[in-house]
Structure formats: structure tokens, C-alpha cells
């Protein structure tokens, strides 16, 4: 039988999953509950500022102080540093504690850890931005389709075969763009098991090279391959590797197209053996480069410097694939000189056991 009369208030507060502190006029903590002691350590006689290592300037809105001033309850969202050094987000509520003669004697502060909710909130904002970015790209594609269709119709009306062909090419181009966006979205949203197989990375690199060389020459960009002939076979997902290289080469070409200062542009795909059996592939360009301000944002989801031309999905997909491979992606870049992206695939065994 549960006998509540045997429970004093401290025992009750100790079993709560929230942080509970009781503080005096000087804001010193006179008691803290079990959850609080677990995450922040012994707190007795410390002020909250000392305990949470809050800078003076951050304490202007102190809810405990406010409660002492007006005897009312207050609440505030804040960030605290726990014992282990992690930052947690909490909503803190302060309420007055009165003595026998109804005089304000202390405050009780209850804080709810909302770090995971904050995390979810961030994800939701991201989703919102993705959708907005996507709507933008699709708008651009619609304009292209609109134009292509108009030109085809105009060609039919004037019985002009060349115009029909030109218009149709525009329609196809935009149709292609649309399928790419859809593919990227699906790739991002799906938890996909990589389809590992023993392949020769040089072959995939050559495939991608062949895919792009004509397109590149249209923009007077030269694509080269510098493949290490001693490169070992590797266990990777061929489709994933293909997507990674296509994305990196597309980015490299865009960087060249945006660069108006050099006469000749070059994109190079290189392969080599890394230490401990890893495979390293580089895609280098002598395009616009990435300046200091942008460097920190490159791997942010949906980051793009291409205005309406980019969706910010490319590197997001690339990163996801590299994560699935347990690999890494890095880059070095100098503004107006060029950028080199480096992807490293670690050595791994085939799922079946043999390597």
C-alpha cells in the first residue's frame, strides 16, 4: 500500500524527472533534487550563476530574482552547461515559497530539459527551408518549360523545323532537371542500404568523365582524368560513387562557369590509393573558388551559392552517401583560384565476408 504520509516533500521531488532547486534570497541553492544532482553535481550553497557558469550579462533576466521582487511565478528559456560540459536547453519556472506568516522565504525553480525538442525544431526549420528552396528551383524549371513549349508552338505555327527542335531541346533539358531534383529528394528522404560490391573505382571515374566531357566542352571547360593505374579494387556502392562523382563534377563545372576571369577552365578527376587500404578520389577545378565567409557553410544542408541555379541538395546527398560508406569528404579552396574536393572511402569487406 502506498502511504503518502511517509513521503516527505524532498523524497517526492527527488523522483521527478525535472531539475528542481530551492534557492534563498542571495540566490544560493539550498537544496537540489536527484536529477539536478546527477547532471550538475552537488550544488549546495552555490549560486545558480556559479553552478551554471553563466556570464554576468546573461543574468539580467533572472527569474528567481524576479520572483523575489514581485512574489509572482516566472518562466524563461535558457541554455545551461551540465557537469560533462554539454549544453542543454531548458524551460525554467520559478515559484515563490512562503513561510508560516506568508512571507516570501525562497523560490523553487523547476526546469524541464527541452534539448530534444529544440533539436526537432531545428530539423523542422530545415525542412521548411528545403521546401522553399525546392519551390524556387521548380519555379525556374517551369519558366524553362514554359519557354520551350512556347518556342515549339511558335515553330509549328511558322512551320520552322529548327525552331521546333530548339524548343524541344529546352523542354527536354528542363524535364531532365526536374527528374534530377526528384531523384535527389528521394535520395535524401530515404533510409537506403548501400548496395556494396567489389568494383574498380577507376571505371566509375571514367564513366563519369565520359558522361560530362561533351557537356563541358560546350562551356569551354576541359575535363581530364588522372587515374592511378595501381588503384586497388574497392568495396563501394557503385551507384553511390557514381552519384558522388556526378555531383562533384557538376559543382566543379558550375564553379568554372561562374568564373569570368580565366580564359581556360579545367576540371580534373584523380584517383589514388590512401593509407590503410582506403581509396581517395579528388575532383579539382580552377573555377571561382570558395571565399572565407562561405567556407564554413559549404556542408550546411541546402547551402547554395548559385542563386536560383542551385538547390543545395547536391552536397547534402554526397555527404549522405559518404556517411553510408563510413568515409569522409573534405575540400581545400582558394578564392578565384579553384577548389579541390577530396572523398575518402575506407577499406571494407564485402557483406558476405570475403573482401
Amino acid at each position: 500500500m502506498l502511504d503518502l504520509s511517509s513521503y516527505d516533500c524532498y523524497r517526492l521531488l527527488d523522483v521527478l524527472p525535472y531539475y528542481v532547486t530551492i534557492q534563498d534570497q542571495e540566490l544560493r541553492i539550498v537544496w537540489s533534487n536527484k536529477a539536478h544532482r546527477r547532471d550538475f553535481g552537488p550544488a549546495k550553497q552555490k549560486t545558480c550563476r556559479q553552478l551554471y557558469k553563466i556570464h554576468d550579462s546573461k543574468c539580467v533576466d533572472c527569474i528567481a530574482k524576479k520572483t523575489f521582487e514581485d512574489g509572482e511565478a516566472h518562466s524563461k528559456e535558457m541554455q545551461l552547461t551540465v557537469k560533462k560540459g554539454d549544453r542543454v536547453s531548458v524551460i525554467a519556472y520559478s515559484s515563490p515559497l512562503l513561510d508560516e506568516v506568508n512571507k516570501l522565504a525562497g523560490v523553487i525553480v523547476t526546469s524541464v530539459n527541452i534539448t530534444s525538442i529544440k533539436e526537432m525544431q531545428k530539423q523542422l526549420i530545415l525542412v521548411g527551408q528545403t521546401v522553399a528552396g525546392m519551390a524556387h528551383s521548380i519555379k525556374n524549371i517551369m519558366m524553362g518549360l514554359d519557354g520551350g513549349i512556347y518556342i515549339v508552338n511558335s515553330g509549328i505555327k511558322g512551320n520552322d523545323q529548327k525552331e521546333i527542335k530548339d524548343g524541344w531541346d529546352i523542354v527536354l533539358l528542363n524535364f531532365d532537371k526536374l527528374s534530377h531534383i526528384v531523384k535527389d529528394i528521394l535520395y535524401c528522404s530515404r533510409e537506403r542500404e548501400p548496395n556494396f560490391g567489389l568494383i574498380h573505382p577507376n571505371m566509375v571515374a571514367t564513366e563519369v568523365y565520359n558522361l560530362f566531357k561533351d557537356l563541358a566542352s560546350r562551356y569551354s571547360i576541359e575535363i581530364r582524368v588522372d587515374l592511378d593505374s595501381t588503384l586497388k579494387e574497392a568495396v563501394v556502392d557503385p551507384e553511390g560513387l557514381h552519384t558522388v562523382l556526378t555531383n562533384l563534377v557538376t559543382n566543379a563545372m558550375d564553379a568554372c562557369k561562374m568564373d569570368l576571369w580565366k580564359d581556360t577552365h579545367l576540371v580534373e578527376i584523380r584517383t589514388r590509393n590512401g593509407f590503410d587500404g582506403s581509396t581517395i578520389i579528388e575532383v579539382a577545378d580552377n573555377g571561382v573558388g570558395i571565399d572565407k565567409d562561405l567556407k564554413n557553410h559549404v556542408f550546411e544542408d541546402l547551402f547554395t551559392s548559385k542563386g536560383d541555379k542551385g538547390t543545395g541538395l547536391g552536397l547534402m546527398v554526397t555527404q549522405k552517401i559518404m556517411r553510408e560508406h563510413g568515409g569522409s569528404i573534405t575540400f581545400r579552396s582558394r578564392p578565384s583560384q579553384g577548389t579541390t574536393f577530396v572523398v575518402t572511402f575506407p577499406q571494407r569487406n564485402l557483406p558476405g565476408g570475403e573482401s
Partner: protein
Amino acid sequence: MSKKILVVDDEPQIVKYLTTFLEDSGYDTCSASNGEEALEVLKKENPDLVTLDLQMPNETGTRFYRNMTKDKKFKDLPVIVISGIPGRHLAVTKPFAVFDKPIDRDALLQAIKTAIG
């Protein structure tokens, strides 16, 4: 003689679209794919109106506009801004009209007629 319109856009498909449409509507056209080229074509062709994409990389659209308005001869040339980004047209101080992508063709034609007949 028909009036001439300069189409400035870095995307060849949009240039092709707009020039085809404007020619079908009875205007002469010339085009440029970046701000620097646009400035040259402007001087050579003396157009009566410019349609300007402000989303071109490296802000070449805005730079072109600044350079154009510095020239007394082209200071008052009507400019129609074509931009998919809200607020982007603010870079152009006195646009005759602003259109969002995808463009409403009839409205564009109407604006051009009002501007230059």
C-alpha cells in the same frame, strides 16, 4: 521601324524564349548573357528597352544596371526586371516593371507596349 529590345539573361533557354516571343510580337531583339556583354551590346545596338535578369551570378545584373544608368544616353532607358527572388528588384531603383519567373507573357507584353509602344 520596329522597336528594339535587349534581353539580358545568363540562361540561353530564357534568352531564346524571350527573343522568340518578342519577335513574334513584332519587336526586334538583341541579347547578352552577362553584364559586360550587355554593356557592349547596349552601345552597339541602341535598344529602346532592356529586360534584365537580376539572378545572374556575381551580381553582374546589378553592376550592368549601375553602369548603364551612369551613361547619360541610357540613363532613362526603360528597364523591365525579371527576377525569381523577392526583393531583388530593389537593386534597380526605377524599374519600369518587375516580373517573377515564370513570366506572365501577356502581362509582359502589355508592360512593354505601355513603355515603348
